[in-house]
């Protein structure tokens, strides 16, 4: 299940989310979006390690991240 959903047209690759992630799951990759910004990435295997704390999304200046968690 994807807990961190990255909107590739909004991300500007500033890396603030990667700094904020307590589990260090996010990193700036080499893929570029239409505007030419490098995009933040998360390995699909790392999605399981995410605890849905949403700290990355709260520091993102471009509101490029949506966070979900499994329903209990």
């Amino acid at each position, binding site marked *: 299940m994807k807990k961190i959903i990255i909107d590739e047209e909004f991300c500007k690759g500033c890396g603030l989310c990667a700094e904020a992630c307590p589990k260090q799951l996010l990193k700036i990759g080499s893929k570029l979006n239409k505007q030419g910004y490098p995009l933040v990435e998360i390995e699909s295997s790392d999605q399981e390690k995410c605890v849905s704390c949403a700290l990355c999304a709260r520091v993102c*200046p471009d509101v490029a991240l949506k966070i979900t968690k499994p329903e209990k």
Partner: protein
Amino acid sequence: MAPNEQTVFQRPSSLKEVPTHYCAGCHHGTVHRLVAEAIDLLDVQQQTIGIGSVGCSVLLYDYFDIDVVEAPHGRAPAVGTGVKRVHPDSVVFTYQGDGDLAAIGTAEIIHAANRGELITVIFLNNTTYGMTGGQMAPTTLPGQVTTTSPYGRDVTKEGYPIRVAELLAMLGGTAFSARVAVDTPKRVMEAGRTILKAFEMQVKKQGFAFVEVLGACPTNWGMSAIEANERVGKEMMDYFPLGVYKDITASG
């Protein structure tokens, strides 16, 4: 979204689904989101009228799904005064940068605060004029190199940075004045609560509310987004301490 999923965080509905023109790592976007969240939480999107100012945030009418009036440079509190007096049931906020509020608009903000106008002012302090190319602003730190202070700001010639939150807290008409920052997740959440309070005070008709937000300008500081974000905590907070400087609703 699958039925067994729960959303933890998503874009507030007062913020349009469009990418912003801000540089990577610029804190305007974060503050826009916090303002939109406050509007959503108070459920006042239909009554809210934003007053745009001159600076990088001049295009905020493209980003907020609310009514916006664009004010001449520095005059946002004066325009806000007019809008609020004509439409007393609306929720009026101005969104200004430091070049707008602390330089050309110093007279307007001081008198709007002193009259106790029932508006909310969001002030983003990034110690420089962002839109015009990084010139020295009244909030530029001593020694800071900008395009118009290439040897660093010399306080004997150019004076000292203005601490606007403290200045406005001294005025009788001000009901709330605080300084927050958005460089770490914890401070972003604190900033969100403070901005929400500033809007709530207007809805409850408690008086003029002012929130100064310390933010980064990576492009004009000549830094990466990460370095600029660190500078907010390392350099800016020494001169611009965070805190609530006036709150008429606080007990004790």
